[in-house]
């Protein structure tokens, strides 16, 4: 199995662990992540406006070069995943946006959302299979109680992301079971961490992250996992809790014995 891989800026800097463990695990599980040549920053946030074209271009470039390579595109960072998947959906369903983007890019073959975009977790669930992961685990994290934090960007908007039931997802819980740990049932797993307002309004971010971390702790979690560097930052820095927050790839690497 070989996929085109879009790491994104943060995974090259502050979020290196998410990327590094992701690659190690991919190797251990037998699939290849081929980093796209010359990828650009996706823009970090999906531009919702119909008349925002320039801000959607870099995502389209990544999608086009994946299409031209004849592959599927795998992302790891929730934010990149959200941006690329939503822009891809625009290219597929919004003729006006597609026309303007294609006019701007002047591609030989216009792009209309042909590329399949997968999150790393979807590769684990749908391609590798959690049962096979379970079989590949060398150090099961038995006894660990882990809270799966989804945040917003993996799940919503549900119609576009098509990732899991946006209100009652199970993919991360299944993942936790596959690596031998016990998932914690908690309600705030798809509530916002405060996101980007942390730059300007720390208290808002603290409030949001605080609610999330408190709920995880009060339900007996010993660790919180996430797929998003921004969530990780907010929960760690603004969550007001000592509960460790780690990337899901780090736990996977630990379980597979490649950490």
């Amino acid at each position, binding site marked *: 199995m070989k996929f085109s891989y879009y790491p*994104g*800026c*943060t995974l090259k*800097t*502050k*979020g290196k662990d998410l990327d590094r463990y992701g690659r190690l695990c991919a190797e251990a599980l037998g699939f290849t992540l081929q980093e796209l040549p010359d990828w650009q*920053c996706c*823009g*970090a*946030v*999906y*531009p*919702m*406006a*119909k*008349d*925002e074209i320039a*801000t959607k271009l870099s995502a389209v470039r990544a999608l086009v070069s994946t299409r031209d390579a004849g592959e599927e595109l795998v992302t790891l*960072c929730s*934010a990149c995943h959200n941006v690329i998947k939503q822009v891809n959906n625009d290219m597929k369903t919004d003729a006006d946006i597609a026309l303007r983007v294609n006019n701007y890019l002047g591609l030989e073959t216009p792009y209309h959302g042909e590329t399949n975009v997968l999150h790393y977790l979807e590769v684990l669930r749908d391609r590798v299979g959690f049962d096979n992961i379970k079989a590949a685990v060398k150090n099961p994290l038995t006894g660990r109680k882990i809270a799966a934090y989804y945040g*917003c960007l993996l*799940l*919503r*908007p*549900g*119609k576009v992301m098509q990732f899991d039931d*946006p*209100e009652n997802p199970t993919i991360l819980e299944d993942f936790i079971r596959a690596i031998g740990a016990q998932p914690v049932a908690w309600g705030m797993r798809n*509530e*916002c961490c*405060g*996101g*980007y*307002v*942390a*730059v*300007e*309004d720390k208290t*808002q971010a603290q*409030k*949001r992250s605080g609610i999330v971390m408190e709920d995880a702790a009060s339900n007996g979690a010993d660790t919180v996992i996430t797929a998003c*560097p*921004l969530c*990780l*930052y907010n929960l*760690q*820095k603004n969550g007001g809790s000592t509960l460790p927050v780690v990337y899901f790839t780090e736990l996977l690497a630990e379980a597979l014995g490649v950490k």
Partner: protein
Amino acid sequence: MSHSNHATEQVLRSSGVDVRKCMRCGKCTATCPAFDEMEYHPHQFVYMVEKGEIEKLAASPSIYKCLSCFACVDRCPRGVEPAKLVEAVRLSVIRKQGQNHMSPDAIPALLDEDMPQQLFVTALRKYSK
């Protein structure tokens, strides 16, 4: 009901939202994680855009408080997508010259060492043009 003006039309076009679909149930506001920080709440965005009161919304700090978490978009039973209105109103402001809510020069002072790139790229995208 509204004195349809240019600003309203621009917001409607840019957001792609059909405000008339709203049945005023308030689920968006019930679900909004940024409620406490907002002066106008998601359902008011919908109603005020319908009434053409873009100026009030544009002048409100509420437009910088939406977390773009898409909860209102997903949970609205009428498919109204209030978050897209907030974004469209904010864009109508920051697209004007000198109206950036945050300039790149201001960023370094706000940084801490752990902040991921994605955080201030998002903030710049949301707050400036």
